[in-house]
C-alpha cells in the first residue's frame, strides 16, 4: 500500500533522512531539485534511500526503478511515490 503522505511531507522526510544520517549537509544546503546523485548520495546512502522508497510504495523496486533517475532529487523521489499512488488508485 502506497503511503498517504503528501509530496511535501515525502520531501521533508527524505531531507531529514539525508541530513541526519547520510551526508554532512544542512537542510538549507540543497533544494528540492538539487541533483543528489552528483556526490551528495554515496552508494550506502543510495541503498538506504531505495529502502525508504520501498517502504513508502509498499513493494520492492525493480532493477529498472533502482536507477539514478528515481532518486536524482527530492522532487524526483516525491514524484515517484505520487505516480505509484496514482497507479494504485487507477
Amino acid at each position, binding site marked *: 500500500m502506497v503511503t498517504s503522505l503528501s509530496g511535501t511531507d515525502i520531501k521533508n522526510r527524505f531531507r531529514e533522512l539525508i541530513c541526519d544520517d547520510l551526508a554532512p549537509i544542512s537542510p538549507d544546503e540543497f533544494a528540492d531539485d538539487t541533483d543528489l546523485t552528483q556526490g551528495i548520495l554515496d552508494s550506502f546512502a543510495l541503498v538506504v534511500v531505495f529502502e525508504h522508497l520501498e517502504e513508502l510504495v509498499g513493494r520492492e523496486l525493480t*532493477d529498472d526503478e533502482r536507477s539514478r533517475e528515481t532518486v536524482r532529487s527530492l522532487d524526483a523521489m516525491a514524484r515517484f511515490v505520487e505516480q505509484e499512488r496514482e497507479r494504485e488508485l487507477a
Partner: protein
Amino acid sequence: MCGIAGIAGTPTGPSDVRLVESMITALAHRGPDRESTVQRAGAALGSARLAIVDLAGSQQPMSSADGRFTICLNGEIFNYPHLRETLKKRGIDFRTKGDTEVALKSLEHFGPAALEMFDGQFAIAFYDQEERRLLLARDRYGICPLYYTRGEGRLAFSSEVHSLQRAEPFRAAELDAGALLDMYVLWGFLPGQSSLAGVHQVDPGCWLEVSRAGTRQHAYWRPTVLTVDEPFALSRAEVIEELSALLAAAVDRRLAPEVSFAVLLSGGLDSSAVSALARRTHGVTTYGIGFADGAYDESAEQRAVAEHLGADHRTITVANGDLVKEMGEVVEHSGMPLTRMAPVSSYLLARELAAHDVRVVLTGEGADEMLLGYDIFKLTLARLAGTSGATVLAELPAPERTEAAGVGAETGDPTDPCYSHRPRWAAGRRIQLYLRPDWQAWAADRDHPALIAERLSDDVRAAHPLRRAQLLELATFLPTMLLGAQSDRMLMAHSVEGRYPFLDNAVVDFLFQLPIDLLTPEPVEKALLREAMAPYLPESVWRRPKQAYTAPLRATLALPEATELYEAFLTPEALDEVGLFDPRRVNWLLGRLRSGAEISGEDSRALLFMMTTQMVHATHIRRS
C-alpha cells in the same frame, strides 16, 4: 632505476651544484650505489644510481667525449643492444656496455626522435651545453616519475617532489589543493599536475624542451587504436599465439641476470602469467602479500601457483594494524595523498624484497588496463547493453567496492567521450561535502568530464566506448595510482626496481590494434590471456575469476590505532592550517566512525584522502 635531479638556466655555479647535491641526497633511497653531480655551462645535473645493468661502468651523469652532451637516465632501455648495433653501423663507438651510453648517443645522433625508438621505462635529462638546451623525457606510460618547477628564472627537476623541496629557490609553499581534488575525483592527476603548487610532471609519452626560448612540452607517443571499421586479418587462435609470444619476449627482456630479481605474485592471472613465463628460462623466486583479514587474502592461491611452477615463494602477512603503522612513511615517499590502502601493503612488501637483496621485480601491472580486466569495463558493457549496472556489480567479486557508485548507474549516452567514467567521477564528487565553503564553490564549478574530453583526440572520440574506457584508465589511474603511488614510489623507497611486461611496447602496440570484440570482458575478462596462459598454468588459475588486488580500507580506518592519526592530522587546528577541509563536516564522519555506524566505500576513501592530504602537508610543506 635511479633518482635524477638538476637545475637549468643561468646563473649556474657552485651554489647550484650544492643544491643539486642536496636534492640527490634526498633521493638516496632510489640509488644507493653512487651519488654524483656535475656542473655544465648553464646547468647542474645529478644522479643517485641503482646499478642494474653494466654494474661497474655506466656511471652517471654521463657526458659525450667532447663534453657537449650530458645525460642522466632513470630506468632502463630494454632494446639497447639493438640500438647499440644500429649506432655502431653508423660508425659510433661505445666505451661502456650499458644502456645509458646508448641513450646518450641515440639522443645525440637522432635528437628527440630517439625517444620513439626506446623500448623501456625511463625518465631522462639530456643537456646540450652548446645550445643551452635541456630535454626532459618520460616513458610512454609514466612508469618513471619526473617533476619540475621554476624559481628565480631557472628550472629544477627531480624524480620525486620532496627532493625539490630541498632546494630553497624552488620550494613550493603550499599544496596544489585544486590538483589534489581533481586527482581524487579522476583517480589520477590531470596532465602536468602534482601535489604541490607550481610543481609539474612531464607527462607520460612526452618530452619537455627547456631552452633560452622558454619551456615547451612535446608528445612523442600516443596510443594508435584500431578504428571501429578497420579490417583485421588474424584469427583468434593466431592472436592468442602472438600474444603469448610477445609476452614471453617482454618477460625475457625484463629479466635482470646481473642482479637478484624476483616476481611479485598476487595469486591472480596476470602475475601468475609473468611468473610462469619467467620460469621458462630461469629459476624464479616469487614474493606475495597475504592479509590477516581473510577476505583479502590470496596467499593460498599464491602458494598453489608457486608450487606448480616450482618457484621459491615467500609471503609476508599484513595485519590491518600494520597498514596504519606505516602510513606516515608511505605518504612521505608517495608525495601524494592516498585514496586506497594498496600502496601501504606494497611498501611493506618492498621492504621485505630489500631485506633479501632483491633489486628487480617483475609484476603483472598494466594487464588490467591493456586487457580490460577491471570492473569499470564490465560496468561499461552492462550500461551499453541497457542495464543499470546494479545487477552486474552485485555479481562482481571484490571485498571493497569503490566502484559501488555504479549502483544505480544510468545507462547514459554511449557517444559521450567520458561515458565509461562518469559514474566513478560522480561518486568522487562526494568529497565536496567535506570541503570548506570556498573550495566547495570551486569544486562545484569543476566539470571533470569536460576537462578530460577537451584533451581527447578525434580518433579517441570515435573509438568504441570500451576502448575509450581503456584509454581513460591509461591516462588517469595507471600513471598516478598504479605505477606512481603503488609501484615506483613504494618499491624505490627500498631501492627495488619494478618492471612491467604487460607495458612492453610490442605488447601494447599489438593489443591496441585488436578489434574490441576480442578484448571484451564478457563472458569472462581477459579471455585472450587466459587462453594464452593455458599451457603454462593450472586450469584452476587461468579459469579463476578476477579478484581485485586491494588492501582492507574500511576496517583499517576503524581501528583504535587509526584514532591517533585522526587526533594528529584531523583536529580543527590542523584542518585550519591546511584550509581545505571543513572541521565540522570531517567531524561528522569521524563521529560516525566512532559510533560504529556503517561507512560507505566512498566515505572511507574520502577519509583516507583527507587524512593523508593533511599528512602530505605536514611532511612536504610544513617540514620544509
